[in-house]
């Protein structure tokens, strides 16, 4: 890890986050792509410095790069591809329905805050004296 690599990782995350907070699904997808790259860079650099390819028989094992972060990053790359394809399908569907790829506000969420909440004891709403019996007249006995 070097400061330059850490800074590039930070930049990839920052630009990814910036795009993620946009209203256009296309930009959000590209943002997720950038975040994916940032994550892979973080995985590889946090896993130690580079070295020779980790293929047994091609040289001294001690000089080889760490294979584990590589395997993890490889998995991450492929999964990001799957996610990107899926999000693109979402964008495509959004276009089919609205002719656009705008992420609209959730109207239901707005309604939630308009709903009247219970503001206190319900019994206040019912007038009358406090009951001093649990029985109606003529009941029980």
């Amino acid at each position, binding site marked *: 890890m070097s400061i330059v690599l850490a800074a590039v990782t930070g930049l990839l995350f920052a630009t990814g986050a910036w795009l993620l907070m946009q209203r256009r699904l296309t930009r959000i997808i590209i943002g997720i792509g950038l975040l994916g790259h940032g994550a892979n860079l973080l995985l590889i650099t946090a896993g130690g410095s580079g070295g020779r390819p980790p293929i047994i028989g091609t040289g001294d094992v001690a000089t080889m790069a760490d294979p584990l972060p590589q395997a993890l990053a490889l998995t991450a790359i492929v999964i990001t591809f799957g996610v990107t394809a899926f999000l693109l399908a979402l964008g495509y569907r959004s276009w089919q329905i609205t002719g656009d790829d705008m*992420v609209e506000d959730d109207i239901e969420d707005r309604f939630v805050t308009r709903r009247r909440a219970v503001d206190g004891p319900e019994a206040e709403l019912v007038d009358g004296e406090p009951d001093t019996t649990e029985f109606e007249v003529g009941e029980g006995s």
Partner: protein
Amino acid sequence: MLALILLLHFALGAAIVAAGDRVNRRGFAVAALAPVATLAWLLPRLGDLIAGGSGGTAYTQRIEWVAGLDLTLDLRVDAFAAVMLLLVSGIGLAVCVYALGYFSSPKAGVARLAGLLTMFAGAMTGLVTSDHLLALFVFWELTSVTSYALIGNDDRSPKARDAALQAILITGAGGLVMLSGLVMLGQTVGTYRLSELATVFAGQEQSGALITVAVLLVLVGAFTKSAQWPFSGWLPGAMVAPTPISTYLHAATMVKAGVYLVARLAPILYPLGVWRPVLLVVGAVTMIFGGWRALRQVDLKVLLAHGTVSQLGFLMMVFGAGTYDLAQAAVILILGHGAFKAALFMVVGVIDHQAHTRDIRRIAALGPGWRTVQVTAVLAAASMAGLPPLVGFIGKEKALLAAADGYLTGGAWAVTGAMVVGSVLTFAYSGRFVLGVLGRMTDRNVIDDDHPLVDGDAPAPTAMFVAPGAVLAGLSLLAGVAPAVIDPLVRAATTALHPDASPKAVVLWAGFNIALWLSLGVIAVGSALMVWRSRVTALQNRVHTPISVLPTAEQSFWALVKGALRNAKRTTRIVQNGSLQVYLMVILGVASLTFVIPVIGAVDSSTPVLDSWLHLPVMGIVVLAALGAAMVKRRIASALMLGAVGYGMAGFFVIQGAPDLALTQFAIETLATVLFVLVLRVLPREFEDRLPGVFAPIRLAVAALVGIGVFVFALGASQARDDVAAPSISAEMLERSVPDGKGSNVVNVILVDFRGFDTLGEITVLLVAGLGVVALARVARRTTVAPAGVSRSPVVDASVRVLFASIGVLSLYFLFAGHNQPGGGFVGGLTAGAAISLVFVAGGLPSVRSLLPVPAWVVLGGGLVVAVVTAIAPIVLGGAVLEHALFEAGLPLLGTVKATSALPFDIGVYLVVVGLVLMAYEAFGQEPEEFTTEEQHLEGARS
């Protein structure tokens, strides 16, 4: 055995609730089985538990659950737990019998009450027999939940709902506070077992701030449960429950939970500086305030409710002091209180049932046949007032004597004084209760046609209805006259709490001592309060008028609830406003702050600026392309920039010594770029941003925060791996790759062997993604897909044929060589995907479809099937999942061929990736003129 009884309570309760109105009031007869079972278990064991009053052997039962995590259910019954069990099951049985009389006519929801009551009794039984603090907490919360359901059983009454809500909010919140206290206590002391707490704690430094805080938190829980001031508001409110339920919950069980916990902890924790002041002050205030308020009531049941609050304060004081003398008094009092308070509640219920009122101003005379009820009321009230020869007198005498005799250092006289004042008030409200029942408190002003006077015309209750209360009152008298009956149990229970105590015998007449004089004083002053009761009432009203300006506990509680709801609404309006962008800003902002702060300390200032000069060009590409992707206005340009970032990353992987990654990244970027182009061609060329301007700076700030956070995190994280002393797992993977994984490409061996499960999961995700892509994109496709209008250029066609063949061969090479050389199923599959892209560019979707004889989803699903079969095949052969074997075979022409069973697994991976690519083309590959939005489609259908 005890665990079975616990189980019986919950099973029986659930069965009665399920039977519902079909069994109706008979549910209580069934419910009685549970306390009977407890008693049948407990009574034969009492001898062992008591062992002549000197503390016998405790009964223990352990049920292992998860042995590895030390999760066990430990039940332990000593003499004190036996006292509690006697209350829970004895009064439980009485209540069940009583309820049969009380619910004389069938009424909806009665069976549910019986079932819930049984479950509640089970929770209470568990609470007093748990030896583990966390198990105790679980049962504690179970009592809160079941009591909530019991109080709110009449769900159509707003009052019942309010009372239930108030009860569960106060006791539930108290329970959670207590949980944090219990965990702190368990962690600092080092044990969660009540039976070990004393020994472990005794050997420790006892003045830590942590333990003080822990104890205060636990006490908040106990105070809320036992309705101590200022948490007492819920108990009188809970009187909306039917009287049998009130009898059980608030005379004998629920509220005793807090007292029980204090009783258990006091002998251990009283040396702590905060313990005695807090308990004695809170107890004294509760005792006096409760008594004062009881004296003002006209409703017999509410009077008893406030009386219970007062008595609980008294019990808190005597148990909380932590001396064995007072504890002995407390054991007598808790038994006595259970008996007399239950009897009194039952009397109130009988009167209410027969005369339809509990208002003492409306009772002039009950009528003939009420003698037993009146005697019961007088006896039980006398025990409450502390009159000889009842058990309440013995308990109170003992408490006053122990308090006044100087067993307490310092404020002994203040404590005694508080007890005396509280006792005077208790005497007075006991008298008020008796006078009310006997018809001496009538007030003509409240009598009208709707509220007639009860004047000797109340029908006499049946014997069965009166019996439970009468028996309990009789027991109060018996224990008073012949204290030897309870003496062994009381002394054993005291010893169970204070192992080194030598409690004196329980006697009615203890000689002329200070307690006797104090008692006589209490009786004299209390009687005076009764004789001049109209003046007392006037005084109370005068004092109460200025006080009533202050909010009551009830009002404060609801103000708090209202405030919380208002704030929740306000917060929701800001945070949950429906905008995804705002949600993300909040999430990203909070997340980056939380993971930055802990890492800042780990940042190593000696981190080099640059590892290798080779990084500069590739990182330069990445930076420029990333900034470009974030800023350009055109969609396609932005997607291409993203591709450029990917190519830069691939270059970086080459430098770092990760050829597999580089190959994967190259292939994927190519594919992804094609997909982007396919989708973006239908969308407008440019973004036009509609986000309001104010958000832009905030977005920028949040994005910057995320970037800085990750930067700091990356610097810290790089250190983390070097700091680990243990040998890296990767070293072992390098070492065992060839012997165990039969391959020399370690990355590939990890993917198909060491972490093969991971890969299996991953290709499943890819399969789902592929299905999702097609499902989403083609949900509105038209029935006929016209391949018409694809213009094919012969030159492109020919070159694609050549390229496709060679790239196809390359992809197969990657697949087969991958175990020992850079490559593998992922890389191979993606390369094949790139070849398919070429075909698509040349001939569109029809050409892609004609490549293979089977549809895309067969490839996708077939791949997963191949991988799964390879993974589980070794089981059939007697190996472990994903265990791979090496095969060698001499084939004609090819010579010796080595293959491992990892190959079919990798083929599965390969097929899934190819299938995903094919699916993507199925989804997005239609020609633009075939596209319609749904609106256009509908218009087309209409015209």
